[in-house]
C-alpha cells in the first residue's frame, strides 16, 4: 500500500505522435481538423497541437517539397510553391486523342437511341454501364435528362460539348443507320436481342 500501482502508461513521445499525424494527412482526401486527428490517433487535442508544430517545422516552405497548410477545414499537405511549375505540367493533361471502346459505345447508344437510363445502356451493351456513364458525365459529354416515365431511373442525354467535339450541328446530323432499323425503337430492340444472345 505504500506505493501506488502505476496503471497509467506513459504517453508516447510527441515525435511519435507527429509521425502518426503525417501518416494520417498523407492518406486523407480532405483537410483534417485537430479533433479528427486526435480521435484517430487516440490522443488528446493539446498534444496533437504540439505534434502539429513539429510536423509544420519538418514540412515548411523552403525546407521541403511537401508543405503543411492550415486551411479552413483543418490541416492538409500541399506541394511547395517552387514546385508549382512542375505540378502544373503534371496536371496539364495532354489532349486525349480518342475515347475508350466503352465510352464510344455508350455515347453512340445515347446519341442514336435518345435519352437512356443506365439500365437501358447496360441492356444494349450487355454489361453494366455505371462507371462509364459516371465518367462521361464528369467529362461533360453526357448530362442528366430527368427520370424515365416508367421505372423512374435517371436518364442521360448527350451535351452541346459532345456535339462540338463530334462536329455535329445537332444530333440530326449523325450518320444514318438505316441498315440497322427504321427508327430508334427498332434499332434498340435489335441490339438488345443481340446483346442477350452474346450472353455472359
Amino acid at each position, binding site marked *: 500500500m505504500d506505493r501506488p500501482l502505476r496503471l497509467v502508461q506513459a504517453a508516447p513521445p510527441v515525435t511519435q505522435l507527429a509521425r502518426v499525424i503525417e501518416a494520417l494527412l498523407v492518406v486523407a482526401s480532405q483537410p483534417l481538423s485537430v479533433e479528427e486527428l486526435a480521435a484517430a490517433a487516440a490522443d488528446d487535442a493539446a498534444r496533437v497541437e504540439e505534434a502539429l508544430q513539429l510536423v509544420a517545422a519538418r514540412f515548411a516552405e523552403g525546407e521541403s517539397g511537401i508543405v503543411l497548410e492550415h486551411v479552413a477545414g483543418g490541416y492538409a499537405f500541399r506541394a511547395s510553391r517552387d514546385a508549382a511549375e512542375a505540378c502544373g505540367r503534371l496536371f*496539364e493533361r495532354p489532349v*486525349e486523342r480518342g475515347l475508350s471502346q466503352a465510352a464510344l459505345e455508350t455515347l*453512340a447508344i445515347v446519341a442514336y437511341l435518345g435519352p437512356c437510363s443506365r439500365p437501358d445502356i447496360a441492356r444494349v451493351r450487355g454489361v453494366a454501364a455505371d462507371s462509364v456513364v459516371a465518367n462521361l458525365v464528369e467529362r461533360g459529354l453526357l448530362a442528366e435528362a430527368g427520370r424515365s416515365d416508367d421505372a423512374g431511373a435517371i436518364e442521360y442525354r448527350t451535351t452541346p460539348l459532345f456535339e462540338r467535339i*463530334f462536329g455535329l450541328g445537332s444530333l440530326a446530323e449523325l450518320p444514318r443507320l438505316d441498315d440497322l432499323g427504321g427508327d430508334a425503337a427498332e434499332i434498340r430492340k435489335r441490339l438488345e436481342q443481340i446483346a442477350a444472345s452474346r450472353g455472359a
Partner: protein
Amino acid sequence: MLAREFVLDLDAFEGPFDLLLSLVLRDELELVDIDLVEVVVAFVERLAERDEIDLEDCGEFLVLISSLLELKARGLFPDEADELAELEPEEAAEELARRLAEYRRMKAAAAWLTDRLAAEGDRFFRLGPAPLAPRPERKLAPQAPALLAEALRALAIPPKAVSLRHMELRFPPVSQFLDRFRSVLARRRRFDFDTEVAGLPRVDQAVAFLALLELRKAGEVELEQGAPFAPIRVSRLDLSLEDDAAATAPAAVAAQEGTTWTARSA
C-alpha cells in the same frame, strides 16, 4: 438420408441440399452460380464424420450430383452438343488434365493473393485526389461522327459461336441410357452391364453406370457383382412375372424396403 439432408453453406446458397435441388429444378436458382465442388466437399466431410459408409447414400448422392453437373455443363456451354462427339477419348483425357492443372494453378494463385492481402493490409494510401491538388481538366480532340455509327454497327453483329470443342468432354445425357436399358429389360429379364456398354467410350460408360444407379434407386432393377471388377449383372425387378419366382422374390422385398444394397462388391 444424408445425401439429401446435409446442410450447405455456399456463396450463392445456404441450406439443405434437398432445398438446393428443388430450387434448381424450379429455376429459382441458377445452377451456373453454384460451385458444385463445394457441394461435393461438404458431402464428403459429412461422410467422414460417420463411422460407416452408407453405400445407398453415396449412390444417391452420386446420381444427384452428376445430374447437376450435366445440367450445369449444358448451361455453361449451351451450343456445344454437336461438337462434343468429335472429341476422341484420348483428347478428352488430355484436355481434362490440362484444365484441371490450370484450375489448380489458379486456386494456388488465389491463395497466394490471399496471403499477400493479409500481409499488406496495414498499408494505407490515399484514394482519389489530394485535398489541395489542382483539378485537372480533360481535353478531348475532335472526333469523327462515323466512329459512333461504327460502334453501334459493331454492337449489331451477332456473336460468332465460340468453338469450345478443344476443351469439351463428350457427355451424353443419362436419360439416353435410361431409355436404352429399359428397352433392353423389356426384351430380356437380365443383362450383363459390361457386355452392354462394351465398345463405348469411357465417359459414355460412366454415364451409363449412373443410369444404372438411377434405375436401381427407382427400384426397377437389381444389381449383382460376384467380386470387385467382375461383370455387373442387371436383373429386372417385376413381381407380376411368374417365372423364376425364387430368384425374384428376395430382390423384390429388398426393393420395397428400399434400404439394402445388394451389389455384393466385397
